Every structure is written in C-alpha cells, then in structure tokens.
C-alpha cells in the first residue's frame, strides 16, 4: 500500500557512503569464465563448463547457480536481440559480460562503479589473458585449468590492486608523477626507447619504474598489458615465472627475460606503422641489415641517446664535425659518455668535469637557442638541454627530432612518443620537408585516435569498441615476445619479433647498449622520486588524458575526507555522462554539500572541486552563487599542475 516515506532512502543514502568507503579498495564481487560448449546435454553438470570462478573459495553450488543463471539468461537475451549481452544489472551489483563463441565472461562489481568502467575492466582482463596466453580456446586445450586459473587470479589482482578509486573510474594507467621529476629524465627514457628501436627486431617499448610508466611508445592498451608482467615480476623479485622462456645475464641487480606474448593484428599494425615513423628519425635503420658488423652497430645504433645522431656518420660530419668532437671527447661514444651527459653524481671524475663543462658552455649558447625555449613545469627551459649540444653535436635533423620529443614532453607531460599530440604545428622553415614526413603520420594517428574518442555517434563508438575487444577474442593472434630488462625497480620492456631471442646478436646488443643508460636513469629516479608530496591545496582535481589514458590528480596519497568523497562521486557521475553524451562540453553540478565542475574535450576530461565551507544558499538561480565561479577557479588553480583549460 502506498506508504510514502523517505526513511528507506535515507538508509540507502547511508549505505552508499559505506559502499564508497569499501570502494577505496575496489573489489570485484565475482568473475567467471564459463564454457557453454562443455554443457550441451541435459545431463551435463554446470560445473563442467566453469573454467574459472573468482573468488575461488565460493562454494561450488553457488558457482554453478551463478554460472547457470547468467549463461542461461544471457543466451536467451542474446537470441532475442540477435546480439551478445554486454551488461547485466541486478539490484545490488552489476555484471559486465562478454560472449564469444561458446565462452561467457562476467565480471561483477558494486552498482557504484560506472557502467563504462566495469565494461572496460572486463575487456582489459580478457585482453590481458589473450596477450600472455594466446587464444582462449587454444589455451584451455594446451594448459590445465589450474594453471590458467592462476593466471586469471593474477590479472584480477593486478587490475584491482594499488591505485585509487579515481583510477578505477577512468581505468587508466599509472604514470610516475611527472611534476616531481626532472623532465630531462623523461626525455632520456624516451631516447633509450628510440635507441632500442633501431634494432629492426624491436617493435616498441616502454620504461617503467616501480610499476609506473616513465615513458612508453605503445598505445595505452598495450602498455597496460606489458605492465602486468612487470608488476608481477617486481613483486616476485627474481623468482622467474613459469612461462618464462629464457633468462640470461642475471648478474647483480640487472636481469633480462623474455616472455612469449600474443598481439592482435591491429596492434601489430599500429606498432609497425609507428616503427615506420621511427625510421624517419633513424635513417640508419636501413643500414641495420640483418647481419651487420655487430661492433659497428653497437656503437652507432644502440648506445646513444640524447647526444646520439640517428643519421649516418656522413651526415653528422657534414653538419658540424668539429663541434661534435668538442662536446664528446670519447670518440666511440660509449654508453658511459652517454650517462655522463645526464648524471652528475655517479661515474668518473672525468664525467663530472665534462658535465660541468657542458653546463658552462650552455650560458653562451643560450641566446642562440631561444627560438625553442620550451618552458617546463619545474622552470627548467629545455633549451638548456639542447643548448650547446644542438649547436655543437646535433645536425638540423636531430634538432627536429628533439623538438618532437620536447613537444611531447610539453604537451601535458605526455610520455609517449608514438602517440603524442602536438597541438600547435612547430614551424621550422629550414626543415619543412623533413617535418612533414615526421608529423604527418603522427597527426593522422592523432586524428584517428580523436575520432575513436569522439566518435561520430554513440552507436558507432560502441561498435568500434566491440570490434576491438571482439577482435581480441575472435581473430588470429600473432605471437610476439616481450623482452624485459630490469635494473632494480626500473624496467625496460620491449615488444620484439618472435625471432629476437634466438637472434645471434640482437639480444646482446639491446642489452649492452641500454644497460648503462638504464643504470643512470634508475639512479636519478631513485633520488628524485623520494620527495614528499607538496601540500595538495584547498581543492581537489582530476585531469584525465583520454588519448594516453593517464590521470593527474592531487587526491592520491591523502586520506579521503568527506569533500573528496563527494568529489569522487560527482566525478564518476560526470564521467559516465560525458561518455554517453558526446556533445557535452562542460558541466557544473551542485548538491547541498559540494559543487563540482567538469570539462572535457576530445583529448581530456578535467574535474574540479573547491574546498570551502559551502555558503548557505537556496538553490534558486543566482548569478552571484560561488558554484558558477568554479570554471575560472579551475583554470587558475590547475595551471600550476600543468593543466591548461584555456
């Protein structure tokens, strides 16, 4: 009978708060993989179809109940709609669902997790499995259920682990806090990766430090997959995992290993086209015939980073031979000299002296380099970096390359090379041609990504998404190898062609050429990342980069207060709103307790809340209301975090 009371809602309201607190360490309620092909006849027990069930300690009866009901209802709905089910919602939980062939995956979470996020998680989970194990059907034919269950458990714990609820809303990658470290290190990391790419067997790579990205050349989805293995091995210290193929040179703190992995064709294609892009950087790639003189390759191709010229020796001598000799006393430019450019602390006295010298000379050359005076967030102008070296060492082409990289560093602390965004075209009349080559593919890619993010219509985007995941499950996966080189907490992870581990020279070359640079980088990161976080300021913000799938926020690392919780709640709502409504650009939403401003573009989403005792207001439209001043405040406050909302 119609008894109207709000008391139950108040209770539910309180319940929400509880769920949110739990959600700080979000747990997936259930995850299951069910193989319908095993349960066909009337008499077949449901348990025969359960490939994996999380939590594993769930009583078998309950496992059977859930699997049976979900599989049954999903099949019925799929038949009615002639399309696989994507999401099943219950009153107290929701299941993201994938149906492919006879398999059914379902991942459940609390109702507070946005739909887009839980679906994204499930797709990540499935693609992680395929990345390390290959096609699902085949894996279950080749390996025992127990083994594969261990894998699922590992991927699940990886996706749940560590990060904050905000990271879960956006299901984004964890990067190192770029504002706390010297941007030069980011540059150096990028250059190490580029250097590795000169080996034709290397497709792309990324550098991770303590489970966070320092630099990556891969699209976010791939980086995420690579990170799982890294985190796992980092946790296990040096215990090699079961499916590891080979480990060589495990001396001291440095070790490498290779793991077979599987990529879908579109990923491989993306990497190949990115690789071609790199060819523009390194014309020398053409010199890199399958069997060149190993020594020559080593010195020319793999050991250089910032001071390195990617072009042939001839080019280099033509451009500025004397200068080159001047700054680089070591004629063969070993990795040692490379390191000396970056690390003032360790290394020989000679290196320190050299470092000092470069520093001195930069003052004089500073005036010449102002045309590329890239201000970085910590106040260092990047022209200091390329100051003398540009004049002295780099040919014009290298300059362009540096600029590209700098551009990527500047652009919202972007860390990727292959996927960076250059918002303004760099105009360099001297090298227009070269630049065109250089930027064209990048821009096209960017457009492509933009299209994917923006979408012409929700349906299209949805289809697009489905295609990507469907492809993962359906299509032929191509075997590749993941090469990892660990220096303490620092890892260089490269995706390489399958023949890389057996290649006569490639593994050794990549190893030796990057070893010293990695050591140097590790020392720097170790010393610089120890700094305590600054005061968070009287506001909360989250800045999500949709293209690189990264998040910048001042929320992590402090105990969430009530304001933070309202911020996270509003952010989750706004994020799901933005992901449905493609024309929405900015929004302010206000409850009695908090007003949150959200703005988004094709490339980013930013959310902002000003901490303040909310002035009492009636909610009636009032131009003087403080909530409407939020956009200005956000613009102002976030500038110092490197977020430009103009």
């Amino acid at each position, binding site marked *: 009978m119609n008894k109207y009371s709000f008391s139950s809602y108040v209770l539910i309201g309180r319940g929400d708060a509880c769920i949110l607190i739990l959600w700080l360490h979000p747990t997936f309620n259930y995850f299951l993989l069910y193989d319908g092909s095993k349960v066909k006849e009337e008499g077949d027990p449901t348990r025969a179809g359960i490939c994996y069930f999380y939590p594993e300690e769930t009583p078998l009866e309950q496992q059977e109940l859930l699997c049976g009901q979900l599989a049954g209802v999903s099949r019925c709905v799929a038949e009615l709609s002639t399309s696989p089910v994507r999401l099943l919602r219950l009153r107290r939980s929701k299941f993201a669902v994938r149906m492919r062939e006879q398999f059914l995956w379902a991942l459940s979470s609390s109702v507070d997790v946005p739909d887009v996020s839980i679906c994204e998680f499930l797709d990540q989970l499935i693609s992680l499995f395929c990345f390390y194990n290959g096609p699902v059907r085949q894996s279950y034919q080749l390996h025992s259920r127990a083994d594969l269950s261990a894998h699922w458990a590992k991927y699940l714990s990886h996706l749940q682990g560590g990060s904050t609820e905000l990271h879960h809303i956006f299901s984004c990658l964890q990067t190192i806090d770029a504002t706390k470290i010297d941007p030069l290190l980011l540059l150096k990391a990028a250059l190490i990766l580029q250097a590795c790419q000169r080996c034709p067997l290397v497709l792309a790579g990324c550098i991770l430090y303590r489970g966070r990205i320092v630099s990556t050349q891969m699209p976010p989805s791939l980086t995420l997959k690579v990170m799982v293995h890294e985190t796992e091995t980092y946790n296990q210290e040096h215990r090699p995992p079961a499916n590891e193929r080979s480990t060589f040179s495990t001396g001291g703190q440095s070790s490498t290993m290779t793991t077979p992995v599987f990529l879908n064709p579109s990923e491989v294609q993306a990497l190949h086209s990115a690789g071609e892009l790199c060819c523009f950087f390194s014309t020398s790639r053409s010199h890199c015939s399958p069997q060149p003189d190993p020594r020559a390759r080593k010195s020319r191709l793999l050991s250089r980073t910032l001071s390195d010229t990617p072009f042939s020796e001839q080019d280099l001598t033509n451009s500025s031979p004397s200068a080159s000799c001047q700054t680089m006393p070591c004629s063969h430019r070993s990795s040692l000299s490379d390191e000396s450019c970056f690390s003032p602390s360790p290394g020989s006295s000679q290196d320190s002296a050299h470092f000092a010298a470069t520093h001195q000379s930069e003052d004089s050359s500073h005036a010449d380099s102002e045309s590329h005076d890239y201000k970085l967030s910590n106040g260092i102008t990047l022209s200091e970096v390329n100051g003398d070296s540009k004049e002295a060492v780099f040919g014009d082409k290298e300059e362009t390359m540096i600029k590209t990289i700098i551009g990527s560093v500047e652009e919202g602390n972007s860390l990727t090379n292959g996927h960076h965004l250059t918002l303004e075209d760099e105009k360099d009349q001297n090298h227009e041609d070269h630049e065109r080559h250089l930027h064209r593919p990048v821009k096209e890619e960017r457009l492509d990504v933009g299209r994917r993010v923006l979408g012409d219509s929700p349906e299209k985007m949805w289809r697009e998404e489905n295609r990507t995941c469907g492809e993962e499950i359906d299509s032929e996966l191509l075997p590749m190898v993941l090469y990892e080189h660990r220096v303490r907490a620092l890892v260089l992870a490269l995706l390489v062609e399958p023949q890389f581990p057996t290649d006569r020279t490639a593994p050794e070359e990549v190893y030796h050429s990057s070893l010293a640079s990695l050591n140097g980088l590790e020392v720097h990161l170790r010393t610089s990342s120890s700094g305590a976080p600054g005061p968070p300021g009287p506001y909360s913000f989250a800045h999500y980069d949709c293209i690189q799938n990264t998040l910048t926020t001042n929320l992590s690392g402090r105990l969430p207060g009530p304001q933070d919780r309202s911020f996270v709640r509003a952010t989750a709502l706004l994020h799901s709103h933005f992901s449905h409504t493609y024309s*929405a650009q900015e929004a302010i939403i206000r409850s009695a307790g908090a007003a949150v401003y959200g703005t988004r573009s094709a490339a980013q989403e930013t959310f902002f809340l000003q901490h303040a005792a909310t002035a009492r207001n009636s909610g009636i439209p009032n131009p003087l209301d403080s909530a409407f001043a939020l956009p200005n405040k956000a613009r102002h406050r976030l500038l110092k975090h490197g977020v430009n909302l103009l």
Partner: protein
Amino acid sequence: MKCLLVASESAEVLFYWTDPEFELSAQEQYGASQEDGERPPAFEDSINTLFAPIIISCSTMVDQLGDSYTSFSTENNHIYVLHQFDECLYIAVNGDGEESEDDLKRKIYVLKKLTEMLFGMVTLSSTLLRKELRPQDTELRCRVWRKLQGLLETYSRLRDHDQSFLVEAVERLIHPTLCEQCIEFLERRLVQQINTSVDRAGEEVQHAFILVHTKLLAFYSSRNASTLTSSDLLALIILVQHFYPSTTDPEESTPEDMDSASAPEIFYTPEPSPTDNDSGSERVEPDKPPVFQFVDPDIQVAVDSLQTLEVPPQDPSTPSRVFLETTLKEGFFPMMPHSMYCLPMWPGITLVLLTKIPNSQIAMSIYNFLEGFTKLEKRLAEGQQGSPASRGQLPVNELRSKIDKFIRVLGSSDIQAPFLQSVWAEFKNRAFSRGGSGLSKELLPWCRNMKIQLCAIYRQCYVAEGSSRQRLSTALQDRALTMVQDKLMDWKEFLLVKSKRNITMVSYPLTYLEEFPGLVHFIYIDRSAGQMIAPSLSITERATSELGKGPLAHFIKAKVWSLVGIARRYLQKGYTTVTLRDGDYFFCYFLWFENETGFKLDVVEIPSLPDDSAPIGMLACDYYRKLLRYYSKCQPSEVVKCYELLTVHLGVIPTEYILQHCSQLARKLWEPSRIPLL
C-alpha cells in the same frame, strides 16, 4: 522494436504489448524453430516461450541469491528493464534506441499506475490481479488487453510530444479571466445542479474539469472532496486522451523527418493522391483509439486470433470505473472507487466529471481491514507470540469485532460473500478458540487468505462486470454537456488555438525574446501544485513555432527532451543545480524550496537514490511528494513549496547573463503559476 510484458511467477504472460517491429522479429525467430508449412502459433504463445527463460531465471535469482535483475543491455544497444511488483514481473524492451533505460523503467511504473487506476485494490492480491489481467474468457481478455495496450500507446505518444507529460506536471491554459469564469460556472451551475438532481442515482460529483487537448482550462472540486493528486490527474488525462485522442487536430501532420512521431504506426500506406498535399490520408478517425493497421501480408499472417476479434463498442454514456487516492477525515485511502464521465464537447475539448459512488464506504472498510491484517502478519512474522494479555491483543480484537460487523452489513445488502464468511470463520476458529493455534506463525497463511477474500469482495463491488450499473442518467449527462457547451461556444476556436500556443516566446505579458535575448526555451514547474509553464514546442507543418520549423525545431525539441533526462539523473543522485554546455547550447537546471510567502529556503542534502529506485516524476510514483515530505522534516514549522526551472540558451551568451536570465525568469514566473486550482 518495443515490447512490454507482465508475467506471473509461473512464467505465464499476463499481459503484453509490442510494436509491429518487435512482433515481426519475434515471429521470425520463433518461425525459425518451426517446421515448414506449420502454421505459426498464436503470438501470445510464442512470446511466452521466448521470454520464459528470463522469467524463470529471475525468480531463481530472487529465491537463491535474494537479488533480482534490473536491466540487461546488449552489444547492439537493445535494452531490457525488469521490475518485480509483488509476484508480477514486468519486462520492458527497446531495440530501436528511441527509449532510454529510464524511459523503460518509467513505462513499467506507468503501466503499474494504470492497472491500479483500473483495478484498484485488486492489484494488492496477485492471485486476483492475474485473473483480472488475463481473464479466461478470450473476448474479455481481448478487451482488457486492448484497453491497456491503447493506454500504453497513448502514454507513449504524450510522453514523446507533450511537455507536460515529459516533466509530468499538468499544464494549464494561461487565461486567468476565462479560467475563473469557468470555475465559477462549474461550481455554481454545473456541479450544484447535478448533485441536487434526482437522476444522479446516488452518485455525487466531486471533481469537474475541462480539458483542451491535454491542457487544463478549469478545475473544480466540491468542498467535501479530497484533493485530486497530480499523479491521478495526469493518469486521468491519459485516459481521456485514450478515449478522445487529439491527433485529429487538423494542424497535426506528419513531416517526413518526424518518422516515429505521431502515434499510429502505419505500414505501406498507399501514396496520397497528388492533390492531397497535406498528409491527410494518414489521419486517424476521430473516435477510434490508435490501433495497428497491418497491410503487409506477412504481418497479416502474424495477426493473433485475439486481435481479429472485434471488441463491441462500449455504450458512451457508461462511466469508467477509476480508483483514485483520497485523503478524508477518516484517513488516507489509496484506491477509492470513483466513476469517471468523459463528455466530449467538441473534438479536443472535453468535460470530465468524477463522482463518488454510493457504496464506496465498503472500500474504506476493506482498506482498513487489509491494513490490519498486514500489521498482524508483520507481528506474527516477527514472532511476537504474545499471550492474550499482551498489548498486541487489543487491535486484533478490534479487528475481529469490526469484521464481524462488516460481514453482517454485507449480508444485509445484496452482496454475496460466502467465501469470506467461511475463511473468516476458520480464521476465528484458529486464532481465538481453545483448540486453535492462537496468534502464532501458523496463522500467517490464513491472514493471507483473508486478504485475498477481502480483495475479492472489493473486486465484486467495484471491478466486476455489471458493478457499475448505477450511473448518472443519460439525460443528466446530456444536460451537463449542453450547459458547458453553451457557456464555451464563443470560446471554442480560441481555446483550440490557445492550447497549441499557450505561452509563446513573444506573447504578452512576458515578451521573452525581448527581455531575455539568447533564451531558446524554458520550463518552469511548481512541484507542490504539480503544474508547469513552458512556451509551446508544438512542431507542425503549418504553424511555425518560435523555433521555426524543420530540422532545427526538431533538434531543439530533442535537446529539451534529453536535457530533462539529464537533470533527472543528477537529481536522483542528489544534485539540485546543473549547468551544462552542450554543443551550441547552454542548459541550466535548478530545483529549490520556498515557503508560502515566497521566501527562499536553504538547500538541504537530498538523498542519493540507487539506480533501481522509482523514476523521478509525478505520474507513476510521486518523487516530489516524497521530496517535499523529506524537506518538511527539516523545516517542520513551514509549508514548503518546491520549484524547478529548466532553461536552454544559445551557447554564445556569456554565462553571467544566462544566470541572470534564470534568476529573473524564476521571479517573473512565480506569479502566473499562482492561479488557484479551486
């Protein structure tokens, strides 16, 4: 691709409604599993088979996990929304992207509301409701289903085209002088005359109102009547629109880009003759509710045997039995029987009379008994097996004597209640005699049984065939109609135009375009009164609205519709202010509270409701009433009023100006909404 069905726990379809696309696709699917040459089964059977696994899985989940499905969505964006009311499972499906999850949920709640209005407290017993929704008699079933299907279609049409059904608040015709005259006329002349007439057969007019299309011209309630809630008034308007759909308006035509727009779905309609350039051939005959017109031979085959049965037309003077919420001095009664007389004055203008029926006293008693048994059940379930001396004893004894008296009264009137008598005797035997179980858990099934019997009496009195034999005489009805027709004769044309262009952006006294440059549209809602004001958005081929015509006007209409959805979504989560820059437009939404003198009250934290809560609105499940009650707890000393304002501006206008506009608008609109209902 739309479908809505109600199923019992035993997976029997109690009611279904589908659009032709869904029916066709379901037939194809079902046909695939059929052998060639075999005649396809009745559609009712195939839909039963198709949905059975879902229905069964639902009850398994409830039984075994204590959780139930609320929605499914598929990769091609089909949406299924499920909701369980007591033992009936409602499933709404959309596969064409025209309805959101919220729309489907709303549709389910509206169907629930409509069944409550048609069947009253019979809906409280699933056993009886099942019989009512799916009578054994095919002809009767056909009639019931037709009626509900028609009501659902009417609702969908109104929700898609009428702003008042979009925001679920009644729109009034803004003409204070005429409005007052009409109210006076209804009070002094019409209602008084009917209620003093000898031909009224014991009925008493409690409410009388005049509708011009969906807009309210005048509303009068007699002094001793309970107020009519907004929810009921909106549902009654759906009913009136179902009987006399206003698609017959000559201005209403179907432009090409408004494909799904007007109500009846017509397939393979022959091209209109070249001279007939306004799509007149697609007009529906005046007094015919929109029904499917199957022309395609493939679909023709699919026509269910049920649909080929012709429903005999009802006597137009027969009133409809409706069950409305009343609050009397005796207490609150959610579903009191009334008779509704719907008298069409001219196409588009209708006089509606709501009468109290003579034996409604029985409904009040039954409601009290049902309440009593529910309380008793709760106590028994909690295990308070008190001794006769416990304080719980008194209400039971009181209940006992009242029911005894009730049965005696029934016996003296000509209402047959043998089952009630026998069940009650058995109940008394078990509960109060020495050899019985006393007031213990064993009594629970008997409580349930008593409730069913009480509902059965209610059904017998108010719902069953022939229960509405008594009525105002036809002559009296005619006289009433003529009276009001005479009164409004000179205003007829004006009213019809006014209903299309109630307030316009250029109309006096609010010249919106001059005062608020950049303002595209607004909706102002007084939630305490359940009324709204908005410039007309009627998009017709001939009459251009302020928005012009063609794609832009449709685009803005679509924007307004989607923005209402967005505002509701945030309100559900406790946000009372939303501003949104969306494409080239800027959208604002505000909800606030005032006291009676217009003093603005402070905002309070509004509860954030879970996703599966009832839809935000007034028609099906009055959210705003709950909200007002919730707020009143914080401001116990004052009468609290709740207002909402939605605006759409051009995006190029600076935000400061937009906010200024909003605040000025809120101040200006405060007055016109004060036209009293009475």
